[in-house]
């Protein structure tokens, strides 16, 4: 159980202090909530609140660079953050929570009902990370997820998102405050159509098989989209209080189809 708190003053100090028995704490909406497993498993929490240099939003060559400690509300209020990311940040309905939750924390939490990850996956966002040995790297958000799930220690210092792409997103939940059964995003990138989703209690996915199908046939029908997700065995979807497996697969299919039409400028 966590009994120690380290108030890191710099990203290097925070990353260098990360051990297997330590965990980062950013805005606190995930780690500090009642029932969170993080303080139960870690002995030391490394607070990033006082870390310098993690709170800027700036335009860079590859798009918009957002410091990992920027809050959702800063993203919403920024004049240079693209609208699609503001929409994803506004999926968090509570303004008081938006004042606390950070973009880096939301990525690192890798929640299956993540607010931002489907959008960041769809636009192939880049994540700047710092390892405990002081090595800086710039990896795509999907690679971050894989490395993090493999147990690699990394501190997210910034996120870079493209600023001139067309993105559509949707979040399904009973109320604005509820956990979402499904959050999905699709983007029209230079390399083509991309689709990602966060399915509650199942995980976060980039649906590459569906993307290939749409690239081959941009005019897919709704029936084809539903059939794709109904038969996608690689997706491990379970039945729970949020709905049956069939329901979740159906939602994936109809939403993916709507996104294809929206990105093509057709009526839904």
């Amino acid at each position, binding site marked *: 159980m966590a009994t120690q708190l380290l108030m890191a003053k710099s990203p290097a100090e925070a990353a260098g202090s990360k051990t297997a028995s330590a965990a980062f704490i950013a805005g606190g909406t995930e780690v500090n909530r009642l029932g969170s497993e993080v303080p139960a498993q870690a002995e030391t929490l490394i*607070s990033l609140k006082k870390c310098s240099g993690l709170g800027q939003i700036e335009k860079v060559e590859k798009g918009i660079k957002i410091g990992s400690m920027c809050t959702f509300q800063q993203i919403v209020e920024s004049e240079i953050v693209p609208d699609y990311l503001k929409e994803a940040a506004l999926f968090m309905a509570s303004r008081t929570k938006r004042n606390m939750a950070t973009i880096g924390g939301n990525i690192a939490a890798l929640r299956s009902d993540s607010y931002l990850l489907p959008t960041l996956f769809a636009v192939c966002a880049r994540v700047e990370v710092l390892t405990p040995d002081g090595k800086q790297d710039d990896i795509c958000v999907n690679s971050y997820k894989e490395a993090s799930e493999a147990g690699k220690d990394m501190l997210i210092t910034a996120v870079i998102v493209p600023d001139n792409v067309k993105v559509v997103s949707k979040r399904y939940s009973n109320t604005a405050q509820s956990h979402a059964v499904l959050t999905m995003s699709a983007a029209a990138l230079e390399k083509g159509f991309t689709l990602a989703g966060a399915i509650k209690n199942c995980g976060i996915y980039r649906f590459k098989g569906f993307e290939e199908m749409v690239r081959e046939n941009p005019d897919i029908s709704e029936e084809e989209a539903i059939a794709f997700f109904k038969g996608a065995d690689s997706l491990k979807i379970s039945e729970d209080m949020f709905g049956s497996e069939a329901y979740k697969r159906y939602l994936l299919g109809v939403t993916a189809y709507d996104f294809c039409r929206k990105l093509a400028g057709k009526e839904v």
Partner: protein
Amino acid sequence: MDKQYKVVHCTINGKKVERIVDVRASLTDMLRNDFRLTSVKKGCEVGECGACTVIIDGEGFNSCIYLAVWAEGKEIWTLEGLIGPGGELSDIQQAFIDEGAIQCGFCTPGFIMTSWEIVNSGKEYTDDELRKALSGHLCRCTGYENIFRAVKKTMLRHLGKFEEAEKVNSQGITEYPEPMPFK
């Protein structure tokens, strides 16, 4: 491993204070247990209900998921700080009473703190924006319409729109007279 404690210096309701706190303590715990500021309610403790909302450096935060040690150097306001020196209520508190925006009262302090931030922002929120700004609070008595009306009327009064405030009807909609038909 031993527990770790830290000294926190901050300003609470205009008064400079310092306390030694367990580094794991939430701001809610510090305000309630050390300062007896019991308007700060412990509701869900996951940051969803908004009953623990306090204003930190001018912005609303869920104090239940905010570490007390993060309050170092901050200016914090709770509902107790809105009351005048003679015990008089602030206008937003009075509006909640006038509009019947209180039932069991548990969510009320949190709602009032966010409302206080809204009405002092100097901004005129649309009905939609106002609802969204209040959406971080849950009222299980479901008194949302009355709460919305209290906040909207106070916001309009703060902006000097006294006549418009009086036209806010029971559904929280501003009523305007029918325009004169052209003859």
